[in-house]
């Protein structure tokens, strides 16, 4: 099949199923399962590093109220950085490897996590923080017992949005010689095999939906029940 034109949806679906049914596409280090796991690994690792960087920073500026304007400004500017350009540039300056590729994905993930954390801490009702102070909590106790739990819904929202962006963009890793679903996609492009590209695109989409679902479940599990109730109450009331 060439990559320039097709007849439409039914034929596409038939061809995609045919591609998936071929056992050769499921075996070995180039097969679908291996590349999917690799894709997943890149995503979780990049978002994990972004969380380690951005959550403490977001908690700090949210808690102290210092440097907020600056950090939010920088993180908004970071959103504008094109990941493909960033990754190719990093590879050109640092050489091929996992680090430059993943650095690009981390930079992609940081703004969302940072602004989610910051907004989360800022959304904590001032009365609750005042009460915590009035009860004699130390700044650390205030952060751990009051601000962080109350910030969780928006914080996890930030992580979810970072994960979506990273899953969607992790295909660039394959462009600079690494693996992942991008490899299947670009491999299809290289040999003019559109069905293979379409399958890879579909798998990326499914992975995105799956990871978003996992994080949504996580959010339900860790967000304090009182907050969930308070949110639904205000939404019903409006």
């Amino acid at each position: 099949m060439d990559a320039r034109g097709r007849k439409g949806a039914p034929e596409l679906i038939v061809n995609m199923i045919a591609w998936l049914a071929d056992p050769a596409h499921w075996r070995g280090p180039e097969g679908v399962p291996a590349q999917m796991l690799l894709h997943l690994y890149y995503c979780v690792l990049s978002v994990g590093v972004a969380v380690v960087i951005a959550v403490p920073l977001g908690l700090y500026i949210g808690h102290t109220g210092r440097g907020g304007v600056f950090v939010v400004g920088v993180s908004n500017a970071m959103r504008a950085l094109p990941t493909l350009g960033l990754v190719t540039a990093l590879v050109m300056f640092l050489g091929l490897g996992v680090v430059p590729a993943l650095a690009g994905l981390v930079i992609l993930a940081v703004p969302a996590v940072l602004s989610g954390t910051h907004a989360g801490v800022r959304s904590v009702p001032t009365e609750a923080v005042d009460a915590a102070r009035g009860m004699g909590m130390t700044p650390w106790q205030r952060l751990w017992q009051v601000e962080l739990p109350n910030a969780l819904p928006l914080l996890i929202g930030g992580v979810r949005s970072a994960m979506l962006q990273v899953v969607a963009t992790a295909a660039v890793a394959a462009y600079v010689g690494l693996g992942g679903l991008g490899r299947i996609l670009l491999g299809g492009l290289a040999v003019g095999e559109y069905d293979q590209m379409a399958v890879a695109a579909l798998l990326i989409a499914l992975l995105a939906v799956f990871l978003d679902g996992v994080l949504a479940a996580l959010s339900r599990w860790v967000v304090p029940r009182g907050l969930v109730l308070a949110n639904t109450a205000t939404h019903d009331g409006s």
Partner: protein
Amino acid sequence: MIEELLKFFGSPSNREMVLDALAEHTYLSLVPLLLGFLVALPIGRLAQRVYWLRGMLLGAANVFYTIPSLALYVLIPGLFGWPLLSSNNVVIALTIYTAALLVRPTLDALESVPGHVTAAATAMGYRTGRSFLTVELPLAVPAIASGVRVASVSSISLVSLGALIGTGGLGKLFTDGFQRWYPAQVLIGIVLTVLLALVVDLLLVGLWRLITPWTRAGGRVLPS
């Protein structure tokens, strides 16, 4: 580095390529922004007015938001039988993305208009459509605006991703520069993408300021 830049821009064909890429990038990011906003507005309004549809519409928006644009760039041509490199693919994919992103902020913004204000409009004899266009929508603008700004930055950055499969825009400077191992070209592409995002953002902020003079009145009561 500076020498390299001068050399790069010294070539008329390079200059032309960069300008073409910039123009195409602007088109591919701003048209979906406008279309996505125009799609999200009625959906947000519908979700606000028809309570039982709300959950369904928000759920659908969330699903569409979850689907990566790159996947859509690849799948849309197959579904519609278009060429893989048609710019329509990018426009449609990013329109879906922008609309999905903006439904929730639009709904929240409309919901945040104080009830006593809309009640007053009704009591003074505004019909629903006029109340929406002249009272509710203007008051919702500041809250929708922040959503539109996020969408504009995201789509400008997402257009470049299309270069992976060969679509146009500043992303071409990355793939082309990478293949020719020409770092200056990649850096120029990055700088121009960021500048484009910045300029569009400033224009949007300027536009909001122009159409919402009351938000700058300040919350303090002036002495009479």
